[in-house]
């Protein structure tokens, strides 16, 4: 397949199909509507399942059901819609069921607006559902990268029996780029889903149960410890990030998604002005690429965290940095996108932006 021009949301949908999705359950919300629209057409036509649920709450619980039944299943939504899914997500993570959740972020809080934003970083990485659970969260910067991750995400979810969230800002959902669907996906050994609740006829002598209730606190603590061990394995194996212009950076930018792309251009502009700026671009937000920060040269003057929010990933930057360098913040929000020149300014006035 040659390169094609495709809208981000549609590319997400097609990539899901290539990733082997069996069922989609979701509810309309801007700016992710092209995901269900595309899938409604192509899944039903191929004997797969598409269902527009009555709400986000229903959708995530349909996902629970189908995931428990052993199928590859996904949902997609945007900010307030993801908020409504938090209870269900916590259940799915607790029951260790694999699924893929696409979150296309818009401006908040509340109903907010429909323009691109990254103000749901907390929502993705710090839950909002109850208890100690984690999603595996990827935040691609381009439609191509979104496709590659989407295709792989079902394998990753199955491998860890954990929900994977693909987190993009609305711009990635709404823009069109030239992309290629044929990049191969890393092969993983995926064991049989012998835990699937698909009737004992498929596994005689054994009842399969999808469950998150552990009324005995000892058992529940044990389960929590097991989950943490799993998350630690994820931390060891699934960290992804890109280092850009890291030869001898004077400053280091940390940014993901669309913001990272804007910063790439800013770095080029700064280069022209003789200011060498590197970038850590986290691709996985959980696990967060803490180790990348160790690679920042001691003499670097500071780290500028750039987000389309009022400062959420900033927490992880501060934790990863752990006091080593000065950390500054630049953010736009509510759907406002900075141009590269604004980032250039921010670097030049780094000292005004230091938070710690």
């Amino acid at each position, binding site marked *: 397949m040659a390169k094609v021009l495709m809208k981000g949301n549609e590319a997400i949908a097609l990539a899901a199909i290539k990733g082997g999705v069996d069922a989609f359950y979701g509810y309309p919300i801007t700016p992710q509507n092209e995901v269900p629209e595309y899938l409604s057409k192509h899944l039903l036509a191929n004997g797969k399942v598409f269902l527009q649920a009555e709400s986000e709450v229903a959708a995530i619980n349909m996902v629970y059901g189908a995931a428990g*039944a052993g199928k590859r299943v996904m949902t997609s939504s945007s900010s307030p819609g993801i908020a409504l899914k938090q209870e269900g997500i916590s259940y799915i993570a607790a029951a260790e069921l694999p699924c893929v959740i696409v979150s296309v972020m818009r401006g908040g809080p509340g109903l907010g607006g429909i323009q691109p934003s990254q103000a749901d970083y907390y929502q993705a990485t710090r839950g909002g559902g109850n208890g100690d659970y984690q999603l595996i969260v990827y935040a691609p910067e381009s439609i191509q990268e979104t496709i590659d991750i989407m295709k792989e995400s079902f394998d990753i979810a199955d491998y860890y029996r954990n929900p994977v969230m693909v987190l993009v800002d609305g711009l990635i959902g709404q823009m069109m780029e030239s992309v290629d669907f044929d990049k191969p996906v890393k092969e993983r050994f995926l064991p049989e889903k012998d835990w699937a609740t698909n*009737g004992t006829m498929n596994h005689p002598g054994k*009842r399969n149960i999808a469950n998150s209730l552990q009324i005995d606190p000892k058992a529940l603590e044990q389960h929590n410890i097991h989950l943490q061990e799993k998350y630690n394995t994820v931390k060891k194996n699934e960290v992804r990030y890109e280092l850009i212009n890291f030869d001898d950076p004077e400053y280091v930018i940390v940014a993901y998604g669309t913001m990272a792309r804007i910063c790439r251009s800013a770095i080029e502009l700064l280069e022209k002005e003789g200011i060498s700026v590197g970038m850590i671009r986290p691709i996985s937000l959980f696990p967060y690429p803490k180790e990348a920060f160790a690679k920042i040269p001691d003499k670097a003057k500071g780290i500028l965290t750039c987000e389309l929010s009022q400062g959420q990933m900033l927490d992880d930057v501060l934790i990863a940095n752990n006091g080593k360098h000065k950390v500054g913040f630049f953010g736009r929000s509510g759907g406002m996108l900075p141009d590269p020149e604004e980032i250039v300014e921010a670097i030049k006035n780094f000292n005004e932006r230091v938070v710690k």
Partner: protein
Amino acid sequence: MTVKYEKTKGLTDKPLSYCPGCTHGIVHKLVGESLVELDILDRAIAIASVGCSVFSYQFFNCDAQQAPHGRACAEATGIKRVLPDNIVFTYQGDGDLASIGIAETIHAANRGENITVIFINNAIYGMTGGQMAPTSLIGQKTTTSQDGRNQADHGNPIKISEMFKTIEGVAYLERVAVNNPKNVIRAKKAIKKAFKYQKEKRGFTMIEVLSSCPVNWGMKPVDALKWIESDMIPNYPLGVFKDKGADDEKN
């Protein structure tokens, strides 16, 4: 000697977690027996809801999922759509189905999802200790209607079967009670028929079961069954509310 009645293989051997005399147990048996008699136990998937029956995944002798409070019908939909040849049923209390889960239940019914819903109406939130349910009767004292439910403060008891009979996708809908042997026999017939319809892919089936909660009603188990007769049935009349297959079912 032939065995006339024994513990059904449709239930596991685990002792039920219900209080003494709670009729959740009777309904469990009827479900288990129906699954066995229709020979669908090995393709059945039970959805346990949140309520006293939250542990029912330990009791139904088949695969099971435990759903978030109120979302059993969504979960059942999710499963049934990907496994259309399995038998999927939910087991839900009145808090679960009629209060927090009414949207999921109505929409599953309206889509005509080919699932079976066992709806336990005991006019109370049992598991959380006796709060008012949407089905609590006018005058009924609960921990959140301590002077008795009244319309102005708490609203009316909700009539689920009356409402659901207006929904196109419903294939079979009956309200039964398990307060005496005669009614238990009727309840069994209804539950079995619902599963039979599902097997025949006729659409959404639901059996509303008037059931007791002796503990939170503050009654002895036997008195609780009498209260079903004297107070619940007059407010929630028994009977078939909808039967799409009535014509070819007349045997």
